[in-house]
C-alpha cells in the first residue's frame, strides 16, 4: 500500500494503551520500561541467499542481508533481520516502506525475489530497563542471557502465547524490540502489563 498522506491521522494498534505502558516506567521505578514504537516501515524480502540478488539487495540497502540465522544487521536507520534461510525483514523509519520496496525490486532486477510491504502486519514494542530480560523470561522459553542472546541477535519465537520476532538491540541497555502481529498486540500488551506488576 502506498504511503501517501491520508486525510485522517493514522492510528497504531497500541495507541489506546500508550498511557498504561508509560505508567510502568513510573510504577517500576524505571527497572522496566515499555513503549510502542509505531508505524515502522517493514518490508518482507524473500530470495535465494545464493543468488546474485542477495548481494545486489544488500548493496542497494547499504547493508548486507545477514546470512547467519537469527542475527540482525544494522546501518543508519535500517535494520535487516534474518527470518529464515530465504527470508528477511527490512525495518526502517516510518514512511520508508515504499522507497525500500522500490529499491529492493530495482536491485534484484530479473532475479526472482518476493518483496512485500508488511508495515502494518506487526507493531513494535520496546522493552528496556535493567529487568527487561527478567520480564520477558516470564513468557519466553529462549535463553536471553547476554552470552546467548546479545546485541545483534534476533529470533522468531513465542512470547506468552503470541508469536513474535524478538530483537536484542545494539547495547544491552537498549533492551529488546518485540515485533508482534497487530491483532495479537492488545493481548501481548495486557500480558506485559500484568507481568510488570511484579516489578511495581
Amino acid at each position, binding site marked *: 500500500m502506498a504511503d501517501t498522506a491520508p486525510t485522517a491521522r493514522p492510528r497504531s494498534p497500541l495507541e489506546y494503551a500508550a498511557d498504561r505502558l508509560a505508567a510502568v516506567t513510573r510504577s517500576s521505578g524505571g527497572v522496566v520500561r515499555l513503549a510502542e514504537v509505531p508505524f515502522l516501515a517493514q518490508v518482507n524480502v524473500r530470495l535465494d541467499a545464493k543468488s546474485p540478488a542477495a548481494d545486489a539487495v544488500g548493496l542497494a540497502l547499504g547493508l548486507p542481508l545477514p546470512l547467519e540465522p537469527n542475527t540482525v544487521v544494522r546501518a543508519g536507520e535500517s535494520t535487516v533481520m534474518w527470518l529464515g534461510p530465504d527470508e528477511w525483514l527490512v525495518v526502517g523509519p516510518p514512511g520508508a516502506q515504499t522507497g525500500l520496496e522500490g529499491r529492493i525490486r530495482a536491485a534484484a532486477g530479473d532475479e526472482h525475489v518476493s518483496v512485500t510491504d508488511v508495515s502494518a502486519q506487526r507493531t513494535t514494542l520496546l522493552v528496556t530497563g535493567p529487568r527487561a530480560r527478567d520480564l520477558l523470561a516470564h513468557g519466553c522459553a529462549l535463553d536471553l542471557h547476554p552470552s546467548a542472546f546479545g546485541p545483534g541477535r534476533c529470533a522468531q519465537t513465542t512470547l506468552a502465547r503470541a508469536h513474535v520476532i524478538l530483537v536484542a538491540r545494539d547495547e544491552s541497555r537498549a533492551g529488546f524490540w518485540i515485533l508482534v502481529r497487530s491483532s*495479537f498486540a492488545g493481548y501481548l500488551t495486557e500480558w506485559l502489563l500484568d507481568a510488570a506488576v511484579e516489578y511495581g
Partner: protein
Amino acid sequence: MLLISCPWCGPRDESEFHYGGQAHVPYPEDPTALSDEEWARYLFFRANPKGPFAERWTHAAGCRTWFNAVRDTSTNEILAVYRAGEERPETAEPRPTTARRAAAVPARPAIEGKAPSEPRGVLAAEPPARLASQPHRLAAGGRIDRATPLTFTFDGTEYQGYRGDTLASALLANGVVAAATGIRLGRPRGIFSAGVEEPNAVVQIEAPFPEPMLPAPAVELYDGLVASSLPGQGRLAGEPDPARYDAVHAHCDLLVVGAGPAGLAAAAAAAHSGARVILADDQPEPGGSLLGTGEHLDWVEATHARLEAAPEVRVLVRTTVFGHYDDNHVLAVERRTNHLGADVPANVSRERVWRIRARRVVLATGAHERSLAFGDNDRPGVMLAASARTYLHRYAVVPGRHAVVFTTNDSAYAAALDLAAAGVDIEAIVDTRPEPGQWAERARSAGIEVLAGHAVTGTRGTRRLTAATVAPYDQHATGQREFAVDLLLVSAGWNPVAHLFSQAGGKLRYDDVLGAFVPDHCRQAVEVAGGANGTFGLAAVLAQGAAAGARAVEAEGYTAEAPALPAVAAPPYTPPMQVFTVPSATGAPRFVDLQRDVTVDDLARATGAGLHSVEHTKRYTTAGTASDQGRTGGVLASGVVAELLGVDISALGLPTFRPPYTPVSFATLAGRDRGALHDPIRTTALHGWHVEHGALFEDVGQWKRPWYYPRGGEDRESAVLRECRAAREGVAFMDASTLGKIDVQGPDAARFLDLLYTNMMSTLKTGMIRYGVMCRPDGMVFDDGTVIRLAQDRFLVTTTTGNAAAVLDWMEEWLQTEWPDLRVHCTSVTEQWATVALVGPESRAVLGSLAPRLAVANDDFPFMAWRDTTVAGIEARVCRISFSGELAYEINVSPWHARALWEALDEAGAPYGITPYGTETMHVLRAEKGYPIVGQDTDGTVTPQDLGMGWAVSKKKRDFIGKRSHARADAVRPDRKHLVALLPDDSRVLLPEGTQLVAESELPAPPVPMLGHVTSSYRSAALDRTFALALVKGGRDRIGERLYAPVGDRLFPVTVASPVLYDPEGARRDG
C-alpha cells in the same frame, strides 16, 4: 519437553515445532496412473517402527522451515536432523547413558549424613530446661527465631510458635501429636516425619486462604495461620483464589537439586567456574540433612554466602523441583509468600513455576527414612527416628518424654543418643540385628538398654501411643516385654529419593547391602550424588557432590575448583538388616501405606487374587497412590508384596515414579494464563468501534468478531433479522478484516495456485478475482476463498478466518518439501489490510459518494473485479465480491486508517440507513444463497462435489491436490452426503444444528438409519421463515422429498430443497 534442533535456528522447545509425519514419502509423479489401491496406500499407509524413524518437522513458531529428523520412537530421542531434500544420514547413534558413579569413599551407612552421623547430645546430670508455654520446647537451641513468636490456631485452639517453625514442629512443641485421622478406618494419626514425605499429618489450611491437603511438616508457620486436621481428604475453596501465580523460564549449565551436603558441595565446585548454576532446595535455608543433625552448619553458612556472591549462581530456596522431563527440562515450584502470612505484598506472586532448561543436572535429593509393618504401627507417637532428631536440632522440640527406638540399622542410634541427651527417657533401643555392633555399645555405655535381635510387635493407646510391646524378632511369641512410652521411633532403612532420576528416564537397581533401590543409569546428562545415590557417610557424600559438580561444569568447558569441605570423622558401621514386616500375634493391622490405610492383609488379598506386579497391587489396593505418593511406604509395599509372593524384591521393582514429586496446585500450574490472558484475544483495528457500539462478540479461532449489534433491548433474533433486512434492502457493512490474506509472488505463482486449488487460477486476468476451493490430498475440502490477480506474477489469496495460518503452512509445506523448484514465495498480510464489506442495493451509492475517482457502474466495475482507488481519501483496494448474493464490495485499507474509513462509511451511508452487521447476519445471508462455510457445513469428509461445487473443480488440469481422490470409487458413490437446504413444514421451527435426519415419520427400533444431519440453521428475514442447510445422503436426488428431524421427543417434518433459497437466478448481484 523435548529440545529439537532446527537445522537453522538450533535447539528450541518442542512446542515451537509441528510434526509432519513420515519423511521420504514423495507425492507420486503421476497420481492418475495409480490404481485406487496404490493411491490409498500413498494417502493412508505409513510405517510405524519401533526405533529410529525418519519424519518431517517444521519449525512453525520460528523460521517456518521444514526439515527431517530421525527419532527413536521408543525413547523419543532425536538422533539426527537434516534439511529437506537431503539424504537420511547413515548412522544415528543414541546418546550414551550416564553410568552410575561408584562412591569415592568406601560405603558406610550415612545417607546425606542423616544416618550414622555422630550424635551431638551429651548426657548431663540435669535434662535441658523446657519452656513453660510450649511444654515440649527446649529453652535454648534450634534454628528458630525466638525473637519472633507467632500465634496460630489448630482445630480451634490457639497456640504459640516461632518464626522458623513448621506447623508440625509448632504442634509438637505444644504437645500436639495427633493431627489427622485415617481415610478408611478413621483411626487417629500423628505427625510421622519432618518433611514432605509425611503420610499422616495432612492438614487443611483455613486462613488466610483455604488450601487442602498440605503436609504439616512442609507448612512454614506464620502469624495468624488457621489450620485443621483432616479425615484423609481435604476441601477445595469455594471462592476464587485472589493470589497471583506466575512462571519464569531459566537456563543454566548446571542445575543442582537439593542443598544438603552433596548439593552444596556440587554447587560450590561449580560456583566460580563461570558456568551458570542454579541450586534449588525445598527448605527455607540450605543445609538439607545437616539442619536436622545440627552438624557443620558453619560450613553451610559460609558455602551459602559464597554461592550468593557468585555472579552466575542462583540459589532458590523454598523451591521444590517436581518434574524432570526430556532434555533436562526441569520444573520447580517456588513458594514465595506463603511463609509471610498476611504480610504479603499484593504484587508478588504467591508461587512461581520455574521452567528450567539445564545442560547438566546433579540430583542431590537425599533419602527418606522408611518404616516397617508391625502391629498397630500407625498410632500417634510413632515417628521416624531421624525426623525426631530433626525436630530436636532444628526446632528445639522433643516430641515425647518416654521413648522406645525400633531400628534395623545404625542410623537410629544417633537419634536415640541425642534425644536422651535432651532429656527424653529412652526406655530401650530395639534392634532386629542379632549383633548391632559398636553403636549398641555406645548406647549401652550411655545407660540405654539395647535389645538386640528384637522387634516391636505391637502398640497400645487410643489418641496417643501409651505402650509398645517388644519380643525377640525370631520367636515373638515368647519373651514379650511392654514399655510404657509416648514415643516410638522407627527406622527400617533409607530410600534414596530417586523420583526425579526415575522421571528423567533413569533406571534403578536394588542394592542388597543397602536394602534400597538406587539410581543405576540414565540417558540424560544427569548425575546423582549423596544420599540420593545411596552413598554412605558424610565424607563420601561431600566428596561425591563436589566431584559431580566439577564433572558437570568441566563437561561444559569450564574449569571447576575444589571447594572447601569440612573434615568429617568416619563413624562406626554395622550393615543394616532388611526387614519389611514383623508378624503380629494379635492380628492387629500392620499398615504399609498410612495415608491410604493399606495394610499387609490388603496386599495379601491382592496377591491372593493372583496379582503379581507392584503396578497391579498398587492399583488394586491404592497403596502408593495418595498425595504422599508412597514416599515412606512405597518400598515397604514392594517389600511386603515380595514376601507374600516369595520372590526377591529386586525382581519385583517399584511402581513408576511420575511427576509431580510433590502436589502442585492447579492455580500454580495455570499461573497468569487465566481470565483475559488464558488464551490470546485477537482483535481488528476496528475493535474499539465495535465495543463502543454495543456489539456482542463471537469467538472465531482466537479472534473476537462482532456477532450482532443489538439496539435498544433487542434480542439476538430481532437484531439479526434487522441486520439481514438492511443488507438485503438498503445497505449494511461488516468488519471482514479477520479473513486470512496471503501474498503469493513469483514467476511460478500461477502454476503453484493451479496445483493448490481445484479450479484453474492461471487463466485469471490481472485485475480480476476468482473464488477457489482447496482440498487435501484425500479430496476433502480444506479451505476456500478468493484469489485476486495483482500482476502476472503476483496474487493475493484470502482464506477463512480460522484457517489463515494453516493455509500458509500448507503452502510452505508443499513448496519446501514437494515443489522446491517452483519460484514462488508466500507471505502473510492478514493484518496488513483492514477489510470492510459494504453490502446491499444501496452500497454502490455509498461507495460512489466516497470514491470520486472510481467508476462504480456495473460495466466499469464488474462483478469479480478489483480496483485501486481512494475511498474517503484513503488509499484503498476495492473488490467486487459478494458473500450474500447482494451487490457488495470489500474495501481494503491500511488498518492504521481503518477507523477513518469505517466512520466515513457510517456517515456517508446514514441517509440510506447503513447498518453494521455481525457474523450471525453474515451466516444467514450466505446460507440463504447456499454458500457453505468450511468447518461448519464441512467436516473433513466432504468433497467439493458433495457441496454441489463441481463447477469449481477443473477437468482440464492434469493434476491438483485432491484430484486423484475425486476419482476414487468412494468419492463417486451416489449415496454420498450432499449439501442441501431443509425447509421445516412449520416455518417457525428452528432445527438445532447437529439434528439428525431420518426417513420415517415414526422412529423405528434402533439402530435407526440416519440420513444425515443439520449443519446450519437460521431464521430468514428475506424468506420470512426458518431454514437449514444439511448434509443428506444422496441429498440432491431427494429434493422435494420429506424427511423427519427428531428434536427431543418430537419428529419435525422437513422438505429437502436446493441449497440456493434466495434469488436463485442471481439477479441481485449487480444491484
